[in-house]
């Protein structure tokens, strides 16, 4: 009895031998992909002539004059003030005071993060970064409010154009190479946020870019198995709730001088720096899903 090969091993063999010959990839009807007509050169439309409509509101006439006056006055002010500041790079600037000395001198001991910037962001001034990930969340809400077409007028791009990108051999082969690299580098960036440069935001953005490239090269349907609207909302809600609750606990312990069970750990190891690693992972997940969500909602009105 011929053992039925599991679908996965067939796909693996197919992928391995690179036998993506292009003919069978095209759907049945042999669509001669139409050459895109001369790309619309985005010349600016002729600016509206102020006197065209005859109805000149005071606002239309005064706005350019007032704006240029405000801009020039402000620029002169800024230049004069900037010159009076201490030279860049001089060590007697007021910005080098006991504030920064403690960040660098005791940063590693108190927060456990080798990368002092990550320590400053996620432990010393943690309330800003708590607000920061919620800025991204509120932008995601606003964009969803605007562009999410729930069954209404569908903003789907016409299938012919998607066909061009998804069967483009150059894009597919480079994507096959780059996307895993991007995702691995993004994960490395998130997990090593407290040891080297990078962190939740940059790692999440890199993974987001990887997801966008994958959906561009291999089509949305294949990525939808992993990331659709339901799983997007679950990831964002779980990550942000964990972030808020963890930070609320550490603020409460700090303010009431209670000893919180989160210890900075031995600096230099991956699982050190107390809360910073899980927070970086949470922020990275939120940023990656939101960036891909922006792209997908812009492109086709749903995630």
């Amino acid at each position: 009895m011929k053992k039925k090969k599991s679908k996965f091993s067939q796909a693996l063999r197919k992928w391995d031998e690179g036998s993506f010959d292009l003919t069978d990839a095209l759907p049945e009807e042999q669509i001669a992909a139409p050459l895109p007509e001369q790309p619309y050169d985005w010349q600016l439309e002729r600016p509206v002539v102020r006197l065209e409509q005859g109805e000149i509101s005071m606002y239309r006439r005064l706005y350019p004059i007032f704006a240029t006056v405000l801009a020039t006055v402000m620029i002169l002010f800024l230049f004069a003030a900037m010159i009076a500041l201490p030279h860049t790079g001089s060590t007697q600037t007021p910005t080098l005071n006991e504030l920064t000395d403690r960040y660098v001198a005791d940063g590693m001991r108190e927060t456990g993060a080798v990368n002092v910037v990550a320590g400053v962001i996620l432990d010393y001034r943690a309330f800003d970064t708590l607000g920061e990930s919620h800025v991204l969340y509120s932008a995601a809400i606003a964009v969803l409010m605007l562009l999410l077409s729930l069954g209404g007028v569908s903003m789907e791009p016409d299938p012919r154009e998607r066909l061009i990108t998804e069967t483009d051999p150059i894009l597919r082969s480079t994507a096959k190479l780059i996307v895993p690299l991007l995702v691995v580098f993004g994960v490395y960036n998130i997990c090593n946020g407290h040891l080297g440069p990078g962190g939740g935001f940059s790692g999440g953005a890199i993974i987001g870019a990887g997801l966008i490239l994958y959906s561009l090269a291999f089509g949305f349907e294949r990525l939808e198995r992993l990331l659709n609207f339901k799983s997007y909302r679950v990831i964002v809600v779980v990550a942000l709730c964990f972030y808020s609750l963890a930070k609320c606990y550490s603020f409460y312990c700090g303010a009431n001088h209670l000893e919180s069970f989160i210890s900075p750990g031995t600096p230099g190891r991956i699982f050190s720096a107390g809360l910073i690693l899980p927070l970086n992972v949470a922020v990275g997940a939120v940023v990656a899903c939101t960036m891909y969500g922006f792209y997908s909602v812009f492109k086709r009105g749903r995630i």
Partner: protein
Amino acid sequence: MNFACNLPLFCMVLCLLCAVISSVLHSTAARRLTLCLAGAVMSMNLYLLIWLLRGGQSTSYMMGHYPHPWGNEIRIGIVEALFSAAFALILGLCVAGGRTQLLRDLNEKKTNLYYAALDLVLVSLQALCYTNDLFTGYVFIEIGTIAACGILMIRQIGRTTLAAVRYMIFSLIGSGLFMLGIIFLYAVTGHLLMPNLRQAVETLWDSGSYRLPLLTALCLQVIGLGIKSGLFPFHFWMPDTYGYATPASAGVLSGLVSKGYILLLLKIVYDVYGTRVFYASGVQNLLYIFGILGMIAGSVSAMREDDLFRMIAYSSAAQIGYIYMGIGISPAFGILGALFHILTHALTKPAIFLAAAQLSDAAGGGRDLETLQGAAHRDHLAGAAFALGALNMIGLPMTMGFISKYLFADAAFHAGGKLIPTLLALALSTILNTFYFMRALIRLFNRPLDSAVERVPMRTQVSYTVAASVFGVANLAIGIFAQPMLSLLSQGLEQF
């Protein structure tokens, strides 16, 4: 460190959690969550206020393990607790009051996103009240701006999207300038938290070094927050923004969001520069002049307007002018008048927007005054609420408007130099206010055009009835018994 000091932290984290959760809930569940959240935040802040009044002194609460030059901090005081309780109450009333228009305007599936944006506006208002750190203020200003833009454009007609774009452009210019102000201040003092900034600015001002960058930072911050809250030359986005949004969001935007920025400006005046340095730097005259120009220009353009909602929006630009005039007069009495007028405007303007929306519904959706003729006879409660709000804006005795105008005049007497222009501006803008509000009132209470008067029964709008009556009762109560509120505010100002 009493338990009450932890309450602001719990309020903010609760708002953030509700904002995140309500994006997955169904719309009616999200609506109830927002209403319960507003109630919970108001009660927590009132509890904190009572604890502070019964002997607790205003302290600063460390967010995390590190004291103020290193870690973030929030500052707990009487004024902060009072205003965040008032903001939570007014947000809840707006959501309750604007219910019928919300159900009509909004797409059913996206309503939970609207309530998530409302929670984010509430957290940004609280953070602006409580923050003790400039950069935290900037981050929560951004949350407030984006969430307010979200609330504004939820009603998908062409005009709201255009209004949202213009609102965003003006707000981003404002927050860009505010950000540059923070950078210059950091370059000169090396600190970001208000107590340390205060000492550094005092020493710099006395020693006279870095005088120009310090003044630039002050001007940039004041102009940035002025642009965002609709001060005179930058109030052109107001009529579109408040005129075409759903009345609930118009109330929240005009009554609360612009007030949050003014409260942050007052914190900067008191805690970052100190009243001595601020009133010696001459920036307050700039505010004073722009405030008076705003009062006059706002009222004049409101008179020229015949669309009821745009008229109310222009009158809100005039009221912002009152507040900035108050700040410009003098530190003690002027700012007391400004604080009281912030409370007045926050309590009155949402009531007027909700009443106008009910009246235009009763008159079959008409927006301008001709079609609204006799609408008050169709909906008695909305007519009464609109009348009370209008009299409040004019400043009739027994209403809060009268008390704030009285405070401004009293402050003008104490600040000798600015006596004549203040009194002239107060008189002129009161006359202009009376003109266009009376015109609207007479038109509303006139005989309706078609004689068939089908009255809108009270039962169908329980939520609007509750909201309008609470607004009215609060307005009259504080208007008549103003002394306890004034003593509360002045006691708060000392410890501000």
